[in-house]
């Protein structure tokens, strides 16, 4: 059964490209355009990995992860956070919230794929 990855970012093009890369490798992908939208789409179904941006409107990535980790179904779901080099402080906040994996923006699709397959094989 294909593993499901959720991609949360306010950039539609980013979701699209990451989606293409991941689907191509055999993952199933669901998308969220910000933290709030993503939470509303997480209704207990199995999600093997969440990729989330930090800077988003409505609900930022860190609040989103905090919320995610409080949902029993997603307590153990690994999270890859997307960051920029200049956000060291955010990174620490995110780690405390439960996001242990970080990928630096900008990245190439192949790099994202590598990061994802480290955590979840397709």
């Amino acid at each position, binding site marked *: 059964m294909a593993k499901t990855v959720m991609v949360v970012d306010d950039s539609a*093009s980013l979701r699209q490209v990451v989606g293409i890369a991941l689907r191509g490798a055999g993952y199933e992908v669901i998308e969220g355009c910000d933290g709030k939208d993503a939470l509303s789409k997480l209704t207990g179904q199995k999600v093997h990995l969440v990729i989330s941006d930090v800077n988003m409107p409505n609900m930022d990535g860190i609040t989103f992860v905090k919320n995610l980790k409080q949902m029993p179904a997603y307590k153990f779901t690994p999270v890859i956070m997307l960051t920029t080099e200049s956000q060291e402080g955010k990174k620490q906040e995110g780690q*405390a919230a*439960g996001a*242990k994996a970080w990928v630096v923006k900008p*990245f*190439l699709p192949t*790099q994202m794929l590598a*990061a994802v397959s480290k*955590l*979840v094989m397709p």
Partner: protein
Amino acid sequence: MELDQALQTFIMESRELLEAMEESLLGLESEPDDRDAIGAIFRAAHTIKGSGGLFGLDGIVAFTHVVENVLDRVRNNEVPINADLIALLLSCRDHIGMLVEQIAADSAAKPDHETETTGIMLLNQLKSYQAGTQEQSPLPAITSSQTKPQSQTAVVAQSGGTVENDNWHISLRFSHDVLRNGMDPLAFIRYLDNMGDIVHIVTLPDAMPFATDMDPESCYLGFEIDFHGENVDKATIEGVFEFVREDCSLRILPPHSRIEEYTQLIDELPEDKIRLGDLLVNCGALTWNELDEALRLQSLNAEFGCDASASRDSGNLGQILVEQNMVQPELVDAALGKQKLAKENKVQESKLIRIQADKLDQLINLVGEMVIAGAATSLLAQRTRDPALHESTSTLSRLVEEIRDSALQLRMVQIGETFSRFNRVVRDVSKEIGKDIGLAISGAETELDKSVVEKIGDPLMHLVRNSMDHGIEKSEIRLQRGKPAKGTLHLNAYHESGSIVVEVGDDGGGLNRARILAKALEKGLVTANQTLSDQEVYGLIFEAGFSTAEAVTNLSGRGVGMDVVRRNIEALRGTVEIDSREGVGTTVKIRLPLTLAIIDGFLLGVGSASYVVPLDMVMECIELSEAERQETRESNYINLRGTVLPFIRLRDQFREQGKAGRRENIVVVQYVGQMAGLVVDELMGEFQTVIKPLGKLFGNLKGISGSTILGSGEVALILDVPALIQRAVNKEAQQLAYSQTK
């Protein structure tokens, strides 16, 4: 193919973000402390950089990276926001826009020389806002920026042999929390296996407690791995475990490591030393001989009192620091709460669906066809005189009408976005020409058809520039005239009887009637003995080749602008009028139809032909009695409840053959406060009219603005009511003048 689509998304997204960025930057000019605006600007740059990287658009990434850095410093109050910085950031925004547009034109394009020079210039200017040492590589990279714990802290001086083995040796000890953090240790090992060959692997269950004490959510395992890979280096292997760096202790020994390095490894690992030795031999990392050598060195080390756990301590310190930083989550929450309020109204935006414009056009076209086909069906149903069929077709046509309205509603967009573009224009132009001018916008929520919005931008731009250049005076003159030094330009929009009015107003010097007349005489546009109303005189500035400006500036004054404005607006079936008071200001009113596709029409019959007038221009219908017909044979007006109503006989106007019917009707139409009557034979009632443009050949026909198809398949002409009213009024005035001279 799919990626191309994604690139299109990126381009659209970037355009929108840049627009929002500009708006926020302009907002900062008046409110430099607006945290939300700064956040939005940062996010725009951040998103463009992030998404640009995905497409390998290094040019955009490299430039935006620097901008983002500066913005980050602004966000953290390290750099104060001021007019210079805003101006610089606006230029940077333009530059990013330029780069994006070049990608849009040709995705493989390299920036041309000019763009490149601009980029370098802007980067130099940005430098002064950047932190001195923050020279980070903007190129795509996945790195853990956490300092890598180097295990070679204690360098052992003794020489020793190397291990005869070309495998990497990896020691992994996972922390108890690894599973709780969502990481699956096996996933990493599997990933490692993808990069080469796991020659041997031994699982260490040593840390496993008694079953009663065991927590199923904790991980107690460690692994010793011998790994063989071509072209693999230490960083690559470390990279595999980058996400669990904090949740495991990782030791990597390259192939042919020296025996003392193994010694150190055995020292550092928590398990029993003899047992470890066995393990290493078991998993093929060491031979027995090598192990003996290692254990010998180890006892030597113990004498030196080497504390191998030093490096672990510094790791702990890092953790403590992290925890110390986390003392302030309440502060963070408070800040987030404040932002939330401002973001509430943004939620609205996320409910929008993006549709390609041509899909919508296709829908409107189909609805148009459906309206025509529906009319044909109703007509046939009427002929059958079957009441049930009649009933159902009338239900159908009511539904069609509702679908038509909702479909047209889909194309309606608020004019606000078009208006707010002018914030930047007014700001830039006023700096350029050295005048102090502010922009006031009202009626931004007024909706109009998207195709109209698209085409109105250029005429508006012309009018705005014209007002700024010629209308609004310089500050000194304004103060002399007792006006505030700062001039105001006003953009306004509102609905008025089936059309939308867009106003461009200024509080400048107003038009000079005498000067316009003189100029018009000189150009031969009017003759000396003509009497003209103010409106007519002002209207002259829309004639081709008319300009009263003594000096031609690069903004306007060449006299090519205003007639183009009028032509553009007439092409949209709209009209322009101008209102001005000398010394007080000028207002240009553009009146446009609400939609260009389908309207509610009123169907009229004259002889064998049918005509349509827009329903919202029809005031009333009255019968032209036999007595009145006789009476008005010569004159072209009637007395309508005490007012003079000029009228036009459509039969004469369009040279319709045949005699007039026994009964004639007058349809009273109005436009912009003027009324006139159209004399017709038959009133056929309301009709949904799908507007079809006239061919080029008929483009210059006076009094006709388009055509439509009736249910019977016949063509009906749509009357250009404003032109007809003008004609009726003029004709009547001429006759009046004629009879007076007699």
